[in-house]
């Protein structure tokens, strides 16, 4: 189904010109060589792909501003930096190259030198009966000393949806990019996400992932701290309930001197949720005086949940600092008693404890109404 005939058809119908054509063909070549992975920890042996179809349900909310360019990914003006195609990233190359070759929506955002985009750009993508397949590919390129915040908002309505998204970020010298991925799919949709960030000298990329739903939630985000003093931050929260399977991996590749990375993940698991967290810090040769830290804290609300945490540090350079911390545990009985002694029901107290744990991440995310939305979601999940 996802073959050369389809690719040619997409290229002609969407009037994709060079260099977009070329990059799609290159990704397709790679796609054909790869096979779908077996996710052993999650016990997923087979990937079933829905047939290709068009997606017409992306809404982009933004204020027009001098120096901000936002165009559809299909647009002929799009120029993919070639280094994006060469990097290793994504939970599986097969999934990633599928979307690179066959993406059915997406946005190319670029910000001119020294331009500060004051309001977040919000990209809403919803799956519904007419648009059950989302293969979105977004590229954000921030030039020297610019700043931009982008929100990717994923949801669905009454559909067995399939989402396989790709995000590429390039922060040039001194640029500061924050991307917030808000995923609130129902239990009927699949969510797979491949993220790549390239960070140049003094640049900074912050990735916030808020994973609240879907039946299978796979996120892999790789940050390449390519030049000196570059900074990569991942601050993420997840809420897993029902029979959800989640695979979250965050990778930091330290290449530049004094590059800094920080991964902070806070989660809560209920019912029979199964989550795998992987945090990988790579200190490559030359990343002198680089420092990286990763932390994952998860609250286990039932003893039927399964939580795997796999932190790893890989060093080729001696002069670096790397640290990791992880904890998984039930809600502290004494804290629960303290809150309940003030009149909160057990459910209200647990909700408050989860929100308290999420607070350090929530505080960093400039989305209006996020707190209320999360409170509502947690309350609903705790009741079911």
């Amino acid at each position: 189904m996802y073959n050369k005939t389809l690719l040619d058809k997409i290229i002609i119908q969407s009037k994709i010109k060079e260099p977009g054509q070329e990059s799609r063909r290159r990704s397709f070549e790679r796609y054909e060589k790869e096979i779908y992975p077996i996710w052993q920890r999650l016990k997923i042996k087979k990937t079933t792909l829905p047939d290709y179809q068009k997606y017409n349900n992306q809404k982009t909310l933004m204020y027009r501003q001098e120096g901000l360019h936002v165009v559809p990914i299909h647009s002929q003006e799009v120029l993919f930096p070639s280094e994006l195609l060469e990097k290793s990233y994504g939970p599986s190359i097969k999934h990633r190259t599928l979307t690179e070759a066959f993406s059915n929506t997406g946005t190319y955002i670029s910000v001119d030198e020294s331009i500060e985009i004051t309001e977040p750009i919000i990209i809403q993508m919803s799956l519904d009966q007419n648009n059950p397949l989302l293969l979105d590919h977004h590229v954000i390129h921030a030039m020297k000393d610019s700043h931009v915040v982008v929100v990717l908002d994923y949801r669905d309505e009454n559909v067995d949806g399939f989402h396989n998204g790709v995000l590429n970020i390039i922060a040039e010298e001194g640029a500061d990019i924050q991307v917030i991925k808000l995923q609130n799919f129902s239990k009927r949709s699949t969510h797979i996400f491949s993220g790549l960030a390239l960070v140049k000298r003094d640049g900074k990329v912050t990735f916030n992932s808020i994973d609240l739903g879907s039946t299978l939630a796979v996120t892999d985000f790789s940050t390449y701290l390519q030049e000196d003093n570059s900074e990569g931050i991942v601050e993420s929260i997840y809420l897993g309930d029902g029979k959800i399977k989640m695979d979250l991996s965050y990778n930091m590749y330290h290449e530049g001197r004094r590059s800094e990375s920080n991964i902070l993940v806070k989660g809560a698991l209920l019912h029979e949720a199964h989550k795998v967290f992987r945090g990988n810090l790579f200190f490559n040769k030359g990343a002198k005086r680089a420092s990286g830290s990763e932390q994952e804290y998860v609250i286990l609300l039932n003893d039927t949940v399964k939580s795997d945490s796999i932190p790893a540090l890989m060093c080729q350079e001696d002069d670096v600092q790397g640290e990791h911390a992880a904890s998984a545990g039930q809600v502290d009985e004494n804290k629960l008693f303290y809150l309940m002694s003030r009149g909160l029901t057990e459910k209200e107290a647990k909700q408050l404890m989860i929100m308290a744990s999420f607070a350090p991440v929530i505080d960093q995310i400039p989305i209006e109404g996020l707190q209320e939305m999360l409170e509502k979601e947690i309350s609903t999940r705790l009741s079911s």
Partner: protein
Amino acid sequence: MSKLLLKIEGLRAQIDNKEIIKGVDLKVHAGEIHIIMGPNGAGKSTLAYTLMGHPNYKVLGGQAFLEGENLLEMKVDERAKKGLFLSFQYPEVIPGITVENFLRTAKNAVESRKLSIVAFSKLLKEKMATLGIDESYAKRYLNQGFSGGEKKKNEILQMKVLNPKVAILDETDSGLDVDAIRVVAEGVNQFANKDNAMIIITHYKKLLDYIKPDYVHILKDGQIIQTGDIGLAATIDEEGFAGVNTN
């Protein structure tokens, strides 16, 4: 006689399979302040936790009623909603929840009438002012980075905001310097009125310089062995708990 708020009869309780409370009887009426004193390990805190319903404390026998209702059958939050309050000896630290957010949630939980955010904020500021707590504490995470004295003041603040019928203060004065004890005692005195009652568990007589109790009880080895007025506390101060007549 004024209204009977709390009635405890033959209460027995254990923790870790060890019986600590071995038959306690106590009647607390509206408008009264009771002091419970006793040596270490007598069961003072166990009594407080058992009444509030900590899951690790198991009731072996006896009864407790709050305004005629069976306290021991209620969940912890139901006890709070009925008007029972416990000031913790070691208040829990909860990073991520501000004092204001927490107390507003709690206030709305114990009262059926919901206060608006503005109305609550005003109430909180008033109560904080009476305890000399700086307004900025409202925005701080619950007990995080608070000194011992600040934590205890925060407990009294919660008591004042939640306005319970029966407040149990578990060694609220321990670990505090004289100034902090005075502030806590003033808070207690401002709060006490003819409609509520207090049970103050303490180790030291210092608090009694500021608070005038109606009754002083001596708890020893899980039982109240003597009840008297403030004079009893003076006896203990001079002779220690060993000097108390157990007959």
